């Protein structure tokens, strides 16, 4: 990274700031990341493949991705509803509800997992109504999706809110004047404008779901081939002191996250261009 200044800024502290930032990032992020990749590279191709492509690992990736995807979709639907209501309507308790949306950000994931695992069991507060209908929302795949919806919801609401607020009244009024019904206005005028933000919220909650560990281990029951997620595999390998195998799976997860990160960046740029 070149330290050449592009502009003649009279402010001091560039060298010190950059040096410290790079030093801190280097020690805490880059060196550990390099160690992880280096460790993975010491494995032979067959060792690496043997660790990351077992039937159990494949089913864990599929479940991690599938549950995160399902949760992100549900979070998008509910998030759009909540953001719409918070921006457009007035009702008592609105500001309290607005603050509460951030709770999943602030609540430790272990607490979320603990509560969600006992609310939906057969004699739990909510499970007593759901289990007789055959809906098992604890220690099942549904449980993982549910808790990931909880975790992902604020990402969607908080990305959509500013965009909904910035929509100008004129465009909807114009649509109405031109004879569009409310439904047509929403689908043809509003939806295309908020779509990029919705996509960003979707990818943020998906990315968060892919890496989530704390809440999921509580609610899933961690059954191999059924409700086991990829981070649990890593922890299992570590507990067997199989560092190489753990690292190999970690590299797969890292690759998945980086692809997501790049996708989010591309999407954000795309949505900004759409607004420009």
């Amino acid at each position: 990274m070149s330290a050449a200044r592009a502009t003649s800024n009279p402010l001091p502290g560039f060298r010190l700031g950059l040096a410290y930032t790079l030093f801190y990032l280097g020690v805490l992020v880059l060196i550990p990341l390099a160690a992880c990749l280096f460790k993975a590279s010491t494995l032979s191709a067959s060792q690496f493949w043997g660790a990351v492509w077992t039937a159990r690992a494949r089913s864990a990736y599929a479940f991690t991705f599938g549950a995160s995807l399902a949760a992100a979709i549900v979070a998008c639907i509910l998030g759009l509803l909540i953001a719409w209501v918070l921006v457009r309507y007035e009702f008592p308790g609105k500001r309290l509800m607005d603050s509460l949306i951030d709770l999943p950000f602030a609540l430790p994931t272990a607490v979320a997992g603990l509560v969600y695992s006992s609310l939906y069991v057969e004699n739990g507060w909510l499970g007593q109504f759901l289990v007789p209908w055959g809906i098992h929302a604890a220690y099942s795949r549904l449980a993982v999706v549910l808790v990931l919806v909880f975790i992902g919801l604020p990402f969607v609401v908080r990305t959509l809110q500013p965009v909904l607020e910035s929509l100008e009244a004129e465009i909807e009024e114009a649509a109405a004047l031109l004879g569009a019904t409310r439904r047509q206005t929403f689908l043809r005028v509003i939806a295309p404008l908020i779509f990029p933000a919705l996509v960003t919220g979707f990818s943020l909650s998906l990315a968060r779901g892919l890496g989530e560990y704390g809440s999921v281990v509580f609610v899933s029951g961690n059954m191999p081939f059924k409700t086991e997620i990829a981070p649990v595999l890593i922890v299992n390998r570590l507990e067997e002191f199989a560092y190489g195998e753990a690292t190999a799976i970690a590299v797969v997860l890292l690759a998945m996250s980086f692809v997501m990160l790049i996708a989010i960046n591309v999407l954000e740029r795309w949505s900004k261009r759409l607004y420009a």
Partner: protein
Amino acid sequence: MHKSLQLLDVARPATRRYSPREDPALVRWTLTLTAVFVVGLLIVVPVIYVFWQALSVGLRSYADNLWGNSDTRHAILLTLTVAPIAVLANLVFGVAAAWTISRFRFRGRTLLTALVDLPFAVSPVVAGLMLVLIFGMNGYLGPWLREHDIKIIFALPGLILATMFVTLPFVARELTPVMEAIGAEEEIAAVSLGAGGWQIFWRVTLPNIKWGLLYGVVLCNARAMGEYGAVYVVSGHYAGRDDTMPLRVEKLFQQYDMPAAYAVASVLTSLALVTLAAKTLLERKTRMELAEAAAVRNVGGSR
């Protein structure tokens, strides 16, 4: 602005039923009630449930569950040790990073911004694993550490490092846009008046960004105290030695000691609620901070 809109509403001819932006009452009420139901079910019920379960054994047992058990007591104190250290480290880093990114244009600036955000993209478990690979018994520095009798993994330094990693972006991420929006005019004026670097920071920058900074610290602290995945990997899980509060919750849960698990969880939940309140307050203060800076700029521009 809101006032004038209301006035417009009154001035509108009575024949006009509703504006074209307004949804029919039925739609409005259905959507509002559904949204309230969803938030109630997903967010409010779990919070109430934590306190209900924790206090269902009575206040005396609740207090005993929290403070009577030496392992739980140690977990609370350990979290109160680990989180502040990690937050302080990331506070200094966040200020340095935000200063560099917001005040200067240089090659690799976008890359640096992406690097700051990187820990958010790494699964906490993977973060813990990376530390084990370096500092663990069989890690790259393992033999050297053993020789010098330094313990990092399965000990306090490991917990701190793991917490630092997962909370690294918070302060920098909140502070950079605030500093960009405030602009460098006042600082440049201070330089032209002969102020030194630290003088500018303490007298000009810090007073301008204090609420934004505090906002970042609050978010960082919430995550630091609640982190589970990363510390799970580096902790030795020895009760009374290296269990933080979230790890203690899990251990009590595994031992089917639900009232005690919920007692610890209730402390963490209270912390989350305090964080939310502080967040709401600080968001308003940060907006005021930005409006003030904009006003100063406007006055300067009109001269």
